């Protein structure tokens, strides 16, 4: 029963994300044609913002896991680190992809190397990619865990920088849509769809993290069994 929990939550998250996409394309109110160069492209925000929200949750899990391993030598911490990096990579790529679609339509370019938030978020995703690929390239051991946990701890510095980037150095990136004062207010229907999106992505992250932690736990068990067999 417990084994199916992660899959069920993950499936629920996928359904929610699909529903959000459908509502964004078919139900969300249109925005003023004067406010945007490409008003229809704005619908991608219902995917982009919740994906970014979920990515920050994943990076938070990565940070806590890294700290737990680094300072407490907790195996649970290492499993959280691995799960956080994988979930951060998945949701980070979703955020970047959707942002690039919008950037192409609205700015005429998919990426702006001088926009601080774009770049710091891109770096977080690159960090997650490095942690996922790097871990797979190394045998599991204290050296691997220490090194990647250190990167996880330092990388988390980028999270608050990314969050405040549009407040401090707004270049092209829009300001915050939630928690950004009057300029960021949403109308009721928009807020409901965005909330469904945020909940769906959060459920997806929880499912992803639970499943990833279970896989890492099984990998650790397999390795200890192999070591026991080596000694026979």
């Amino acid at each position, binding site marked *: 029963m417990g084994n199916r929990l992660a899959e069920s939550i993950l499936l629920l998250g996928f359904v929610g994300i699909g529903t959000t996409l459908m509502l964004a394309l078919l139900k969300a109110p249109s925005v003023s044609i004067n406010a945007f160069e490409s008003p229809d492209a704005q619908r991608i925000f219902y995917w982009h913002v919740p994906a970014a929200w979920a990515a920050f949750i994943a990076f938070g899990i990565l940070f806590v896991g890294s700290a737990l391993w680094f300072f407490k030598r907790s195996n649970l911490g290492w499993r959280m680190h691995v799960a956080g990096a994988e979930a951060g990579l998945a949701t980070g790529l979703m955020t970047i992809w959707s942002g690039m679609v919008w950037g192409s339509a609205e700015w005429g370019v998919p990426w702006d*190397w001088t926009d601080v938030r774009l770049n710091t978020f891109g*770096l977080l995703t*690159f960090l997650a*990619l490095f942690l996922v690929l790097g871990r797979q390239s*190394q045998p*599991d*051991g204290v050296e691997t865990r220490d*090194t990647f946990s250190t990167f996880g701890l330092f990388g988390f510095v980028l999270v608050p920088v990314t969050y405040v980037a549009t407040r401090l150095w707004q270049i092209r990136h829009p300001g915050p849509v939630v928690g950004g004062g009057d300029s960021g207010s949403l109308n009721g229907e928009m807020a409901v769809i965005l909330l469904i999106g945020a909940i769906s992505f959060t459920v997806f992250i929880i499912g992803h993290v639970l499943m990833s932690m279970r896989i890492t736990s099984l990998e650790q068990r397999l390795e200890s069994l192999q070591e026991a067999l080596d000694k026979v």
Partner: protein
Amino acid sequence: MSEVLLSLNDVTVRRGSSVVLKDLHLQLEEGQIVLLSDKNGAGKSTIIETAAGLLPLETGEVSHHSNLLIDSNGRSKRPERAFGLTLQSDGCIGSQRVEEHIHNALDISGGRIEIDPWLKRYNLAHRKHDLVAHLSGGQRRKVAMLAGILPGFVGSQPRILLLDEPAAGLDKASRAMLLEDLHKLQQRGNAILLASHHADFNTCATHMFHENKLVANESAEKATTHHEDIKTLQAKGNVSFRTSFTLNQRTLSTVANNGIAGLLTLGILLALVDSSAVDSSVIQASGLFLSAAFAAGLVGDSMISMLHEQKALDWWKAHRQGIPNSYVHALVIGSGLTALTQLGFDSELSIELILIGGLLTSATMAIVRAMELATSRLARPRAAFIRILTPILILPFALLVQWITDSNLL
């Protein structure tokens, strides 16, 4: 009472997925030779590397001459008196000459001695000026061994000598000479921690360390050699810088790696961008002129590749005298590339921009190098995809270009 030179207190070290050393306690006093002779995989090299401060500790601390070297809280200090070190994997850079590696070990220990008699003694005199990479495995081992024991003959103060399998690959005659030299070192008061499988050393060890217990060796032979005075000469300073400069001059590795990357970038820019269309008052101009220097820095420090040979990086890290780098060459190459780019686009040479180009290459190289060093503890550091993180440098580069434009430097 004899002074305690080396002390490992309640040390626990993990390697891979297992605890290799658990609550280890070991003290070496003046004039002691402690032999680690456990079977393979028992942690002999781990004890040597821990005593050299190379491995992070889970618990406990390591002290040299009663001063902290490293502890489990991550504190690490440079030893006041340098120690001799022979690592299991030699620790020599292949592009160094035999005499250079041995002189480095001596300079780090604060004085030189005449090395020719030692090279002759171990039949290496005719190889003195050869590159370490050109030696056979046994000869390279002799160089590594000499770099580990000769600091014990420098000055009058006793030192710690950490020797991991110094006799591996040595013939019987060389082993006998080493045995004799260990007796001489012992007479000078040096404390020697020795890991070896060779039974020859059972006779010279004052103590055996077996299964976490230090036991006096009843069968130890008394030294019969008499104490000889060896004249200590003046050491040469800046060991790390000197090595960096010499290796770069000899191998031209920074030119070959970073310079070529910069030149290729310049070639691509010249092929794609119409020089008559570049307006130096717009933001792209400074970015364009600095691109080759930036690309050169992104290649990283070729010295790191050289240091990965025979685990030379560990040898340099253990001595805590700085790790050789290519910053000076990067500065020159970056400046040159920036000047060439400006000339290539028919722009007036800007001294400020040329200087910024040089600093940009050095700084970029330093950051990439720091990333690579951060993964050097991994089992497979080159497979760790660390270059994925180099895009971190694009935003600072863009902000630098913006600043140059705002400052009207061009």
